[in-house]
Protein backbone atom coordinates (compact mmCIF):
# COMPACT_ATOMS: atom_id res chain seq x y z
CA UNK A 1 0.00 0.00 0.00
CA UNK A 2 1.13 3.50 -0.76
CA UNK A 3 2.29 5.59 2.15
CA UNK A 4 -0.29 8.22 2.98
CA UNK A 5 0.35 11.84 2.21
CA UNK A 6 -2.59 13.51 3.87
CA UNK A 7 -3.76 17.03 3.10
CA UNK A 8 -5.98 18.57 5.77
CA UNK A 9 -7.78 21.77 4.83
CA UNK A 10 -8.82 23.81 7.88
CA UNK A 11 -10.88 26.98 8.18
CA UNK A 12 -10.90 29.73 10.77
CA UNK A 13 -14.48 30.50 11.74
CA UNK A 14 -16.39 32.27 14.50
CA UNK A 15 -16.30 30.00 17.54
CA UNK A 16 -19.24 27.61 17.60
CA UNK A 17 -20.40 28.79 21.01
CA UNK A 18 -20.67 32.45 19.98
CA UNK A 19 -24.05 33.71 18.88
CA UNK A 20 -23.41 35.51 15.59
CA UNK A 21 -24.70 39.07 15.15
CA UNK A 22 -25.54 40.65 11.82
CA UNK A 23 -23.73 43.98 11.30
CA UNK A 24 -25.63 47.23 11.16
CA UNK A 25 -25.18 47.69 7.41
CA UNK A 26 -26.71 44.23 6.88
CA UNK A 27 -23.82 43.16 4.69
CA UNK A 28 -22.38 40.35 6.82
CA UNK A 29 -22.08 38.84 10.25
CA UNK A 30 -19.96 40.91 12.64
CA UNK A 31 -16.53 39.27 12.96
CA UNK A 32 -14.38 42.02 14.48
CA UNK A 33 -13.55 41.36 18.10
CA UNK A 34 -15.40 38.03 18.05
CA UNK A 35 -13.73 34.84 19.24
CA UNK A 36 -12.63 32.63 16.36
CA UNK A 37 -11.40 29.05 16.31
CA UNK A 38 -10.89 26.11 14.01
CA UNK A 39 -14.07 24.88 12.30
CA UNK A 40 -15.18 21.96 14.54
CA UNK A 41 -15.43 19.53 11.62
CA UNK A 42 -11.85 20.40 10.64
CA UNK A 43 -10.63 19.49 14.12
CA UNK A 44 -12.05 16.03 13.41
CA UNK A 45 -10.06 15.92 10.14
CA UNK A 46 -6.81 16.77 11.88
CA UNK A 47 -7.54 14.29 14.68
CA UNK A 48 -8.34 11.52 12.23
CA UNK A 49 -5.13 12.14 10.26
CA UNK A 50 -3.03 12.02 13.41
CA UNK A 51 -4.78 8.89 14.67
CA UNK A 52 -4.17 7.09 11.39
CA UNK A 53 -0.48 7.68 12.00
CA UNK A 54 -0.39 7.01 15.76
CA UNK A 55 -2.49 3.87 15.64
CA UNK A 56 -0.77 2.65 12.49
CA UNK A 57 -4.15 2.20 10.86
CA UNK A 58 -2.84 2.37 7.30
CA UNK A 59 -0.68 -0.56 6.13
CA UNK A 60 1.55 1.79 4.15
CA UNK A 61 2.03 4.19 7.05
CA UNK A 62 1.71 7.95 7.06
CA UNK A 63 4.47 9.87 5.33
CA UNK A 64 3.15 13.38 5.72
CA UNK A 65 0.29 15.37 7.25
CA UNK A 66 0.02 18.85 5.79
CA UNK A 67 -2.58 21.33 7.04
CA UNK A 68 -3.64 24.10 4.71
CA UNK A 69 -5.78 27.17 5.22
CA UNK A 70 -6.71 30.18 3.11
CA UNK A 71 -7.50 33.19 5.19
CA UNK A 72 -6.32 36.38 6.89
CA UNK A 73 -3.03 36.49 8.89
CA UNK A 74 -4.85 35.11 11.93
CA UNK A 75 -5.58 31.88 10.06
CA UNK A 76 -2.01 31.02 11.03
CA UNK A 77 -3.25 30.54 14.59
CA UNK A 78 -5.41 27.62 13.58
CA UNK A 79 -2.64 26.17 11.40
CA UNK A 80 -0.44 26.26 14.53
CA UNK A 81 -3.26 24.50 16.40
CA UNK A 82 -3.38 21.83 13.69
CA UNK A 83 0.37 21.35 14.03
CA UNK A 84 0.10 21.24 17.82
CA UNK A 85 -2.44 18.43 17.37
CA UNK A 86 0.07 16.55 15.24
CA UNK A 87 0.17 17.86 11.66
CA UNK A 88 3.75 17.93 10.34
CA UNK A 89 3.64 21.24 8.53
CA UNK A 90 1.30 23.82 7.16
CA UNK A 91 0.58 26.03 4.19
CA UNK A 92 -1.03 29.41 4.69
CA UNK A 93 -2.66 30.92 1.63
CA UNK A 94 -2.66 34.57 2.62
CA UNK A 95 -5.75 36.66 2.14
CA UNK A 96 -6.80 40.10 3.31
CA UNK A 97 -8.84 40.47 6.46
CA UNK A 98 -12.51 40.12 5.57
CA UNK A 99 -11.83 38.55 2.18
CA UNK A 100 -13.74 35.29 1.68
CA UNK A 101 -13.45 32.50 -0.87
CA UNK A 102 -16.38 30.60 -2.28
CA UNK A 103 -16.30 26.79 -1.99
CA UNK A 104 -15.65 26.36 -5.72
CA UNK A 105 -12.54 28.55 -5.50
CA UNK A 106 -11.37 26.72 -2.39
CA UNK A 107 -11.85 23.43 -4.23
CA UNK A 108 -9.78 24.72 -7.17
CA UNK A 109 -7.09 25.86 -4.76
CA UNK A 110 -7.06 22.52 -2.96
CA UNK A 111 -6.89 20.63 -6.24
CA UNK A 112 -3.65 22.41 -7.11
CA UNK A 113 -2.36 22.02 -3.57
CA UNK A 114 -3.10 18.28 -3.55
CA UNK A 115 -1.27 17.90 -6.86
CA UNK A 116 1.72 19.94 -5.68
CA UNK A 117 1.95 18.11 -2.38
CA UNK A 118 1.43 14.72 -4.04
CA UNK A 119 -1.40 14.06 -1.59
CA UNK A 120 -3.31 10.80 -1.88
CA UNK A 121 -5.83 11.46 0.89
CA UNK A 122 -7.60 14.73 1.58
CA UNK A 123 -9.67 14.86 4.76
CA UNK A 124 -12.02 17.83 5.07
CA UNK A 125 -14.81 18.80 7.41
CA UNK A 126 -18.28 18.06 6.03
CA UNK A 127 -19.24 21.72 6.31
CA UNK A 128 -17.98 24.95 7.80
CA UNK A 129 -20.24 26.22 10.54
CA UNK A 130 -20.25 29.78 9.21
CA UNK A 131 -21.37 29.38 5.60
CA UNK A 132 -22.99 25.93 6.10
CA UNK A 133 -22.56 25.14 2.39
CA UNK A 134 -21.29 21.54 2.69
CA UNK A 135 -19.70 21.62 -0.78
CA UNK A 136 -15.92 21.89 -0.79
CA UNK A 137 -14.94 18.23 -0.38
CA UNK A 138 -17.35 17.01 -3.04
CA UNK A 139 -16.26 19.75 -5.45
CA UNK A 140 -12.61 18.89 -4.84
CA UNK A 141 -13.22 15.20 -5.53
CA UNK A 142 -15.07 16.14 -8.73
CA UNK A 143 -12.27 18.40 -9.93
CA UNK A 144 -9.58 15.84 -9.13
CA UNK A 145 -11.64 12.99 -10.56
CA UNK A 146 -11.15 11.11 -7.27
CA UNK A 147 -13.70 9.05 -5.36
CA UNK A 148 -15.34 10.70 -2.37
CA UNK A 149 -16.67 9.49 0.95
CA UNK A 150 -18.64 12.23 2.66
CA UNK A 151 -19.98 12.46 6.22
CA UNK A 152 -17.64 9.74 7.40
CA UNK A 153 -18.13 8.25 10.84
CA UNK A 154 -15.51 5.50 10.39
CA UNK A 155 -12.50 5.12 8.09
CA UNK A 156 -10.68 1.79 7.74
CA UNK A 157 -7.69 0.94 5.60
CA UNK A 158 -7.29 -2.39 3.84
CA UNK A 159 -4.84 -4.01 1.49
CA UNK A 160 -4.07 -2.67 -1.95
CA UNK A 161 -4.89 1.00 -1.27
CA UNK A 162 -8.49 0.18 -0.41
CA UNK A 163 -10.31 2.34 2.10
CA UNK A 164 -13.67 1.42 3.63
CA UNK A 165 -15.74 4.31 4.92
CA UNK A 166 -18.95 4.29 6.93
CA UNK A 167 -21.06 7.31 6.06
CA UNK A 168 -23.85 8.95 8.01
CA UNK A 169 -26.88 9.15 5.73
CA UNK A 170 -30.56 9.94 6.20
CA UNK A 171 -32.02 7.13 8.25
CA UNK A 172 -28.79 5.42 9.28
CA UNK A 173 -25.37 4.57 7.90
CA UNK A 174 -23.98 3.34 4.61
CA UNK A 175 -20.63 1.72 3.93
CA UNK A 176 -18.65 2.32 0.74
CA UNK A 177 -15.23 1.20 -0.40
CA UNK A 178 -12.82 3.01 -2.69
CA UNK A 179 -9.15 3.08 -3.55
CA UNK A 180 -6.66 5.82 -2.89
CA UNK A 181 -6.43 8.62 -3.87
CA UNK A 182 -9.55 9.62 -2.02
CA UNK A 183 -11.42 12.60 -0.57
CA UNK A 184 -13.09 12.08 2.81
CA UNK A 185 -15.29 14.54 4.70
CA UNK A 186 -15.83 14.17 8.43
CA UNK A 187 -19.02 13.79 10.42
CA UNK A 188 -19.25 14.56 14.13
CA UNK A 189 -19.19 10.89 15.06
CA UNK A 190 -15.80 10.20 13.48
CA UNK A 191 -13.72 10.82 16.59
CA UNK A 192 -13.15 13.11 19.55
CA UNK A 193 -10.47 15.67 18.81
CA UNK A 194 -7.69 16.02 21.36
CA UNK A 195 -6.69 19.24 23.05
CA UNK A 196 -3.31 20.59 22.05
CA UNK A 197 -1.04 20.38 25.09
CA UNK A 198 1.33 23.19 26.02
CA UNK A 199 4.53 21.28 25.08
CA UNK A 200 2.98 20.42 21.72
CA UNK A 201 1.92 24.03 21.20
CA UNK A 202 5.55 25.05 21.83
CA UNK A 203 6.82 22.40 19.42
CA UNK A 204 4.31 23.49 16.79
CA UNK A 205 5.93 26.93 16.72
CA UNK A 206 9.04 25.34 15.23
CA UNK A 207 7.20 23.40 12.54
CA UNK A 208 7.31 24.62 8.98
CA UNK A 209 4.64 27.05 7.83
CA UNK A 210 4.85 28.05 4.17
CA UNK A 211 3.17 31.22 3.02
CA UNK A 212 1.61 31.36 -0.40
CA UNK A 213 -0.96 33.44 -2.23
CA UNK A 214 -3.90 32.64 -4.47
CA UNK A 215 -1.83 33.91 -7.40
CA UNK A 216 0.82 31.28 -6.64
CA UNK A 217 -1.91 28.76 -7.49
CA UNK A 218 -2.86 30.66 -10.62
CA UNK A 219 -6.22 31.68 -9.13
CA UNK A 220 -8.00 34.88 -8.34
CA UNK A 221 -10.90 35.41 -5.99
CA UNK A 222 -13.68 35.24 -8.53
CA UNK A 223 -17.14 35.56 -6.97
CA UNK A 224 -20.09 33.81 -8.53
CA UNK A 225 -22.45 34.65 -5.72
CA UNK A 226 -23.02 38.25 -4.73
CA UNK A 227 -24.31 38.70 -1.20
CA UNK A 228 -27.08 41.26 -1.53
CA UNK A 229 -27.85 41.40 2.16
CA UNK A 230 -27.58 39.56 5.43
CA UNK A 231 -30.37 39.92 7.95
CA UNK A 232 -31.34 38.63 11.36
CA UNK A 233 -33.82 35.76 11.28
CA UNK A 234 -37.34 36.59 12.36
CA UNK A 235 -37.29 36.62 16.14
CA UNK A 236 -39.36 34.02 17.89
CA UNK A 237 -41.11 35.04 21.06
CA UNK A 238 -41.35 32.59 23.88
CA UNK A 239 -45.00 32.11 24.76
CA UNK A 240 -44.54 31.80 28.47
CA UNK A 241 -44.90 28.91 30.86
CA UNK A 242 -47.75 26.85 32.19
CA UNK A 243 -48.15 25.42 35.68
CA UNK A 244 -48.88 21.78 35.01
CA UNK A 245 -49.54 19.11 32.39
CA UNK A 246 -53.20 20.12 32.08
CA UNK A 247 -52.06 23.65 31.30
CA UNK A 248 -49.69 22.28 28.67
CA UNK A 249 -52.37 20.19 27.00
CA UNK A 250 -54.80 23.12 27.12
CA UNK A 251 -52.32 25.55 25.58
CA UNK A 252 -51.37 23.09 22.84
CA UNK A 253 -55.05 22.62 21.99
CA UNK A 254 -55.53 26.38 21.94
CA UNK A 255 -52.59 26.70 19.54
CA UNK A 256 -54.07 23.98 17.35
CA UNK A 257 -51.09 21.68 17.84
CA UNK A 258 -53.10 18.85 19.40
Amino acid sequence: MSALRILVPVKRVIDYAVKPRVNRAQTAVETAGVKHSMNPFDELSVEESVRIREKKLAPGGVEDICAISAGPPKAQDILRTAMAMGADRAIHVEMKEGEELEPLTVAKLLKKAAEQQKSNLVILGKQSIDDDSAQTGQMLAGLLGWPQATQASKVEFGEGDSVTVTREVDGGVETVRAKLPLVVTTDLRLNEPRFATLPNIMKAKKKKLDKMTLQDFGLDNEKRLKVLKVTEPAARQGGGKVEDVDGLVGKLKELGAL
Partner: protein
Amino acid sequence: MFPTARRVLGSAAGPLLGRGASALGRCRRRRLLSTLAILEQRDGQLNLASLSAFTAAKKLGGTVHGFVAGSKVSAAAEQAAKVDGVEQIIAVENEAYEKGLPENYAPLLVENIKKGNYTHVISGHTAFGKNVLPRVAALLDSQQISDITSIHDEKTFVRPIYAGNAIATVESSDPVRIITIRGTAFAPATPESGSAAVVRGVDPKPESMTEWVSEDLAKSDRPDLATASKVVAGGRGLKSKEDFDRVMLPLADALGAAVGASRAAVDSGYADNSLQVGQTGKVVAPQLYMAVGISGAIQHLAGMKDSKVIAAINKDADAPIFQVADVGLVGDLFEKVPELTEKIKSS
Protein backbone atom coordinates in the same frame (compact mmCIF):
# COMPACT_ATOMS: atom_id res chain seq x y z
CA MET B 1 -42.21 13.25 -27.08
CA PHE B 2 -43.90 15.26 -29.81
CA PRO B 3 -46.75 16.71 -27.79
CA THR B 4 -44.22 17.88 -25.22
CA ALA B 5 -42.01 19.41 -27.86
CA ARG B 6 -44.98 21.24 -29.32
CA ARG B 7 -45.96 22.51 -25.94
CA VAL B 8 -42.47 23.82 -25.24
CA LEU B 9 -42.33 25.41 -28.65
CA GLY B 10 -45.77 26.88 -28.25
CA SER B 11 -45.14 28.50 -24.90
CA ALA B 12 -41.81 29.88 -26.07
CA ALA B 13 -42.93 31.09 -29.46
CA GLY B 14 -46.09 32.85 -28.24
CA PRO B 15 -44.58 35.80 -26.40
CA LEU B 16 -41.75 36.08 -28.90
CA LEU B 17 -44.02 36.65 -31.86
CA GLY B 18 -46.33 38.83 -29.86
CA ARG B 19 -43.80 41.27 -28.49
CA GLY B 20 -41.67 41.61 -31.56
CA ALA B 21 -38.01 42.24 -32.16
CA SER B 22 -36.89 43.61 -28.83
CA ALA B 23 -38.29 40.63 -26.94
CA LEU B 24 -36.61 38.36 -29.43
CA GLY B 25 -33.30 40.07 -28.79
CA ARG B 26 -33.70 39.72 -25.05
CA CYS B 27 -34.48 36.07 -25.29
CA ARG B 28 -31.51 35.40 -27.50
CA ARG B 29 -29.24 36.93 -24.95
CA ARG B 30 -30.80 34.93 -22.21
CA ARG B 31 -31.74 31.31 -22.48
CA LEU B 32 -35.27 30.46 -21.58
CA LEU B 33 -35.71 29.36 -18.04
CA SER B 34 -35.77 25.60 -17.72
CA THR B 35 -35.30 23.60 -14.57
CA LEU B 36 -34.32 20.02 -13.92
CA ALA B 37 -35.63 18.71 -10.59
CA ILE B 38 -33.68 15.75 -9.24
CA LEU B 39 -35.92 13.10 -7.69
CA GLU B 40 -34.72 10.49 -5.25
CA GLN B 41 -35.82 6.89 -5.38
CA ARG B 42 -34.99 3.71 -3.57
CA ASP B 43 -35.79 0.17 -4.77
CA GLY B 44 -38.06 1.67 -7.41
CA GLN B 45 -40.04 3.69 -4.84
CA LEU B 46 -40.15 7.43 -5.39
CA ASN B 47 -39.11 9.42 -2.35
CA LEU B 48 -42.19 11.64 -2.15
CA ALA B 49 -40.36 14.27 -0.10
CA SER B 50 -38.04 14.81 -3.07
CA LEU B 51 -41.04 16.20 -4.97
CA SER B 52 -40.28 19.41 -3.07
CA ALA B 53 -37.82 20.04 -5.90
CA PHE B 54 -40.82 20.44 -8.24
CA THR B 55 -42.38 23.01 -5.92
CA ALA B 56 -39.20 25.08 -5.97
CA ALA B 57 -38.83 24.60 -9.74
CA LYS B 58 -42.37 25.87 -10.33
CA LYS B 59 -41.62 28.96 -8.23
CA LEU B 60 -38.81 29.78 -10.64
CA GLY B 61 -41.17 29.68 -13.61
CA GLY B 62 -40.20 28.30 -17.01
CA THR B 63 -40.33 24.68 -18.02
CA VAL B 64 -39.92 21.97 -15.41
CA HIS B 65 -38.46 18.54 -16.02
CA GLY B 66 -37.81 15.80 -13.49
CA PHE B 67 -34.93 13.35 -13.36
CA VAL B 68 -34.82 9.91 -11.80
CA ALA B 69 -32.24 7.13 -12.11
CA GLY B 70 -31.79 3.67 -10.63
CA SER B 71 -32.28 -0.01 -11.34
CA LYS B 72 -36.09 0.03 -11.73
CA VAL B 73 -37.41 3.50 -12.13
CA SER B 74 -40.46 3.25 -14.39
CA ALA B 75 -43.04 3.25 -11.58
CA ALA B 76 -41.31 6.14 -9.83
CA ALA B 77 -41.13 8.06 -13.12
CA GLU B 78 -44.84 7.44 -13.82
CA GLN B 79 -45.75 8.65 -10.36
CA ALA B 80 -43.67 11.82 -10.72
CA ALA B 81 -45.21 12.40 -14.16
CA LYS B 82 -48.57 12.95 -12.46
CA VAL B 83 -47.39 16.17 -10.83
CA ASP B 84 -49.20 19.05 -12.51
CA GLY B 85 -47.13 21.54 -14.46
CA VAL B 86 -44.25 19.15 -15.16
CA GLU B 87 -43.39 18.77 -18.86
CA GLN B 88 -41.16 15.76 -18.84
CA ILE B 89 -39.61 13.12 -16.64
CA ILE B 90 -36.19 11.92 -17.69
CA ALA B 91 -35.60 8.38 -16.52
CA VAL B 92 -32.36 6.45 -16.65
CA GLU B 93 -32.66 2.79 -15.81
CA ASN B 94 -29.35 1.29 -14.85
CA GLU B 95 -28.43 -0.69 -11.77
CA ALA B 96 -25.22 1.37 -11.54
CA TYR B 97 -27.13 4.43 -10.32
CA GLU B 98 -29.31 2.68 -7.75
CA LYS B 99 -27.26 3.74 -4.74
CA GLY B 100 -26.64 7.28 -5.96
CA LEU B 101 -22.87 6.96 -5.86
CA PRO B 102 -21.60 10.44 -6.74
CA GLU B 103 -18.69 9.22 -8.88
CA ASN B 104 -21.04 7.96 -11.58
CA TYR B 105 -24.27 9.78 -10.69
CA ALA B 106 -22.62 13.22 -11.06
CA PRO B 107 -21.33 12.61 -14.64
CA LEU B 108 -24.76 11.12 -15.45
CA LEU B 109 -26.44 14.32 -14.31
CA VAL B 110 -23.89 16.51 -16.08
CA GLU B 111 -24.60 14.79 -19.41
CA ASN B 112 -28.34 15.12 -19.00
CA ILE B 113 -28.06 18.76 -17.85
CA LYS B 114 -25.95 19.61 -20.90
CA LYS B 115 -28.28 17.80 -23.25
CA GLY B 116 -31.36 19.53 -21.82
CA ASN B 117 -29.60 22.90 -21.73
CA TYR B 118 -31.09 23.60 -18.30
CA THR B 119 -30.64 26.93 -16.56
CA HIS B 120 -31.44 25.55 -13.11
CA VAL B 121 -30.94 22.21 -11.39
CA ILE B 122 -32.66 21.59 -8.06
CA SER B 123 -32.27 18.82 -5.53
CA GLY B 124 -33.14 18.44 -1.88
CA HIS B 125 -30.45 19.29 0.69
CA THR B 126 -30.58 15.66 1.79
CA ALA B 127 -27.73 13.19 2.32
CA PHE B 128 -28.04 12.35 -1.40
CA GLY B 129 -28.24 15.97 -2.58
CA LYS B 130 -25.39 17.06 -0.36
CA ASN B 131 -23.23 14.22 -1.64
CA VAL B 132 -23.89 14.49 -5.36
CA LEU B 133 -24.84 18.08 -6.29
CA PRO B 134 -21.57 19.84 -5.35
CA ARG B 135 -19.72 17.33 -7.50
CA VAL B 136 -22.07 18.16 -10.36
CA ALA B 137 -21.55 21.89 -9.75
CA ALA B 138 -17.77 21.54 -9.86
CA LEU B 139 -17.92 19.54 -13.09
CA LEU B 140 -20.05 22.34 -14.60
CA ASP B 141 -17.85 25.06 -13.05
CA SER B 142 -20.82 26.49 -11.18
CA GLN B 143 -20.91 27.79 -7.60
CA GLN B 144 -23.71 25.82 -5.96
CA ILE B 145 -26.27 27.55 -3.76
CA SER B 146 -26.97 25.26 -0.78
CA ASP B 147 -30.03 24.73 1.38
CA ILE B 148 -32.13 27.62 0.08
CA THR B 149 -35.33 28.52 1.92
CA SER B 150 -36.78 30.97 -0.57
CA ILE B 151 -36.59 32.05 -4.21
CA HIS B 152 -36.77 35.75 -5.09
CA ASP B 153 -36.24 35.39 -8.80
CA GLU B 154 -34.28 33.23 -11.20
CA LYS B 155 -30.95 34.41 -9.84
CA THR B 156 -31.70 35.55 -6.29
CA PHE B 157 -32.04 33.11 -3.44
CA VAL B 158 -32.31 33.17 0.33
CA ARG B 159 -30.34 30.79 2.52
CA PRO B 160 -29.62 30.53 6.23
CA ILE B 161 -25.99 30.81 7.35
CA TYR B 162 -24.34 30.49 10.77
CA ALA B 163 -26.70 27.75 11.91
CA GLY B 164 -29.71 29.84 10.95
CA ASN B 165 -28.56 32.82 13.02
CA ALA B 166 -28.32 34.94 9.89
CA ILE B 167 -30.19 34.91 6.61
CA ALA B 168 -28.26 35.68 3.44
CA THR B 169 -29.79 36.84 0.17
CA VAL B 170 -27.45 35.93 -2.67
CA GLU B 171 -27.42 36.60 -6.39
CA SER B 172 -25.88 34.01 -8.67
CA SER B 173 -24.11 34.93 -11.89
CA ASP B 174 -23.59 31.35 -13.11
CA PRO B 175 -25.25 30.31 -16.39
CA VAL B 176 -26.31 26.99 -14.85
CA ARG B 177 -27.50 27.36 -11.28
CA ILE B 178 -27.09 24.29 -9.12
CA ILE B 179 -29.33 24.53 -6.09
CA THR B 180 -30.19 22.42 -3.07
CA ILE B 181 -33.37 23.26 -1.20
CA ARG B 182 -34.42 22.95 2.40
CA GLY B 183 -37.30 20.49 2.27
CA THR B 184 -39.24 22.12 5.09
CA ALA B 185 -39.35 25.39 3.14
CA PHE B 186 -40.97 23.89 0.03
CA ALA B 187 -43.89 21.53 0.53
CA PRO B 188 -43.61 18.47 -1.74
CA ALA B 189 -45.70 18.66 -4.92
CA THR B 190 -48.40 16.00 -4.99
CA PRO B 191 -48.90 13.69 -7.96
CA GLU B 192 -52.37 14.56 -9.32
CA SER B 193 -53.64 14.85 -12.84
CA GLY B 194 -50.42 15.78 -14.63
CA SER B 195 -49.32 13.83 -17.66
CA ALA B 196 -45.67 14.55 -18.25
CA ALA B 197 -43.95 12.53 -20.92
CA VAL B 198 -41.51 9.98 -19.55
CA VAL B 199 -38.42 9.84 -21.73
CA ARG B 200 -35.21 7.92 -21.54
CA GLY B 201 -32.22 10.03 -20.50
CA VAL B 202 -28.66 9.90 -21.74
CA ASP B 203 -26.62 7.22 -20.02
CA PRO B 204 -22.89 7.89 -20.34
CA LYS B 205 -22.26 4.71 -18.29
CA PRO B 206 -19.36 6.12 -16.28
CA GLU B 207 -17.65 3.68 -13.94
CA SER B 208 -17.98 4.41 -10.26
CA MET B 209 -14.69 4.52 -8.43
CA THR B 210 -16.47 3.54 -5.25
CA GLU B 211 -18.18 0.35 -4.43
CA TRP B 212 -21.33 0.31 -2.33
CA VAL B 213 -20.81 -2.25 0.43
CA SER B 214 -23.77 -2.17 2.78
CA GLU B 215 -26.17 -0.04 4.74
CA ASP B 216 -27.74 -0.13 8.14
CA LEU B 217 -30.88 1.94 8.31
CA ALA B 218 -32.84 2.45 11.48
CA LYS B 219 -36.19 0.74 11.03
CA SER B 220 -39.22 2.36 12.52
CA ASP B 221 -42.98 2.37 12.10
CA ARG B 222 -43.07 5.98 13.24
CA PRO B 223 -43.30 8.84 10.75
CA ASP B 224 -40.11 9.99 9.05
CA LEU B 225 -38.37 12.65 11.14
CA ALA B 226 -37.73 15.11 8.31
CA THR B 227 -41.33 15.22 7.12
CA ALA B 228 -43.38 14.39 10.24
CA SER B 229 -46.07 16.83 11.32
CA LYS B 230 -45.25 16.20 14.96
CA VAL B 231 -41.84 15.57 16.50
CA VAL B 232 -40.93 14.74 20.07
CA ALA B 233 -37.25 15.14 20.82
CA GLY B 234 -35.28 14.10 23.86
CA GLY B 235 -32.02 15.45 25.21
CA ARG B 236 -29.43 14.87 27.87
CA GLY B 237 -32.13 15.06 30.54
CA LEU B 238 -33.30 11.57 29.61
CA LYS B 239 -30.23 10.14 31.39
CA SER B 240 -29.99 6.75 29.58
CA LYS B 241 -31.11 4.86 26.50
CA GLU B 242 -33.54 2.80 28.60
CA ASP B 243 -35.11 5.95 30.01
CA PHE B 244 -35.18 7.56 26.58
CA ASP B 245 -37.09 4.59 25.16
CA ARG B 246 -39.32 4.25 28.22
CA VAL B 247 -40.30 7.93 28.38
CA MET B 248 -40.11 9.23 24.80
CA LEU B 249 -41.43 6.36 22.68
CA PRO B 250 -44.89 6.11 24.34
CA LEU B 251 -45.26 9.89 24.02
CA ALA B 252 -44.33 9.69 20.34
CA ASP B 253 -46.83 6.89 19.81
CA ALA B 254 -49.60 8.72 21.67
CA LEU B 255 -49.06 11.76 19.45
CA GLY B 256 -48.31 9.86 16.25
CA ALA B 257 -45.03 11.76 16.22
CA ALA B 258 -41.53 11.10 14.92
CA VAL B 259 -38.73 10.86 17.46
CA GLY B 260 -35.79 13.24 17.40
CA ALA B 261 -32.85 13.85 19.70
CA SER B 262 -30.30 16.46 20.64
CA ARG B 263 -26.63 15.96 19.95
CA ALA B 264 -26.03 15.29 23.64
CA ALA B 265 -28.55 12.45 23.59
CA VAL B 266 -27.07 10.98 20.43
CA ASP B 267 -23.47 11.27 21.63
CA SER B 268 -24.41 9.56 24.89
CA GLY B 269 -25.94 6.70 22.93
CA TYR B 270 -29.55 7.32 24.03
CA ALA B 271 -30.73 7.57 20.42
CA ASP B 272 -29.50 6.74 16.92
CA ASN B 273 -27.33 9.31 15.08
CA SER B 274 -29.89 9.62 12.32
CA LEU B 275 -32.36 11.09 14.82
CA GLN B 276 -30.22 14.12 15.59
CA VAL B 277 -31.96 17.43 15.05
CA GLY B 278 -29.80 20.50 14.54
CA GLN B 279 -27.26 22.31 12.41
CA THR B 280 -25.38 19.11 11.66
CA GLY B 281 -28.31 16.73 11.80
CA LYS B 282 -31.81 17.05 10.41
CA VAL B 283 -33.65 20.30 9.97
CA VAL B 284 -37.33 19.88 10.81
CA ALA B 285 -40.29 22.26 10.82
CA PRO B 286 -43.28 20.27 12.06
CA GLN B 287 -46.62 21.58 13.31
CA LEU B 288 -45.58 20.60 16.82
CA TYR B 289 -42.06 20.18 18.18
CA MET B 290 -41.91 18.97 21.74
CA ALA B 291 -38.45 19.32 23.31
CA VAL B 292 -37.98 17.16 26.39
CA GLY B 293 -34.90 17.58 28.55
CA ILE B 294 -33.23 19.71 25.87
CA SER B 295 -31.56 22.95 26.97
CA GLY B 296 -31.73 24.61 23.54
CA ALA B 297 -28.15 25.22 22.33
CA ILE B 298 -27.92 27.30 19.14
CA GLN B 299 -26.88 24.26 17.11
CA HIS B 300 -30.06 22.48 18.17
CA LEU B 301 -32.29 25.50 17.60
CA ALA B 302 -30.87 25.67 14.06
CA GLY B 303 -32.67 22.44 13.31
CA MET B 304 -36.12 23.16 14.76
CA LYS B 305 -36.83 26.83 15.30
CA ASP B 306 -39.04 27.07 12.22
CA SER B 307 -41.49 24.63 13.80
CA LYS B 308 -45.00 26.02 13.99
CA VAL B 309 -45.53 25.37 17.69
CA ILE B 310 -42.68 24.58 20.06
CA ALA B 311 -43.36 23.04 23.47
CA ALA B 312 -40.67 22.44 26.06
CA ILE B 313 -40.48 20.39 29.22
CA ASN B 314 -37.38 21.06 31.27
CA LYS B 315 -36.56 21.23 34.95
CA ASP B 316 -34.30 24.26 34.45
CA ALA B 317 -36.54 27.33 34.28
CA ASP B 318 -33.66 29.32 32.73
CA ALA B 319 -32.97 26.88 29.88
CA PRO B 320 -32.65 28.80 26.56
CA ILE B 321 -35.30 26.53 25.00
CA PHE B 322 -37.96 28.47 26.95
CA GLN B 323 -37.03 31.63 25.03
CA VAL B 324 -38.32 30.10 21.81
CA ALA B 325 -41.01 27.77 23.15
CA ASP B 326 -44.64 28.78 22.65
CA VAL B 327 -45.47 26.85 25.73
CA GLY B 328 -43.12 25.70 28.45
CA LEU B 329 -43.51 23.50 31.46
CA VAL B 330 -40.91 23.57 34.20
CA GLY B 331 -40.71 20.21 35.89
CA ASP B 332 -39.19 16.76 36.12
CA LEU B 333 -39.63 15.09 32.74
CA PHE B 334 -39.79 11.65 34.37
CA GLU B 335 -43.03 12.74 36.07
CA LYS B 336 -44.46 15.14 33.53
CA VAL B 337 -43.98 13.18 30.31
CA PRO B 338 -45.75 9.97 31.43
CA GLU B 339 -48.57 12.12 32.81
CA LEU B 340 -48.77 13.97 29.49
CA THR B 341 -48.72 10.69 27.57
CA GLU B 342 -51.67 9.39 29.62
CA LYS B 343 -53.66 12.60 29.18
CA ILE B 344 -53.13 12.60 25.41
CA LYS B 345 -54.13 8.95 25.18
CA SER B 346 -57.32 9.48 27.16
CA SER B 347 -58.36 12.68 25.39
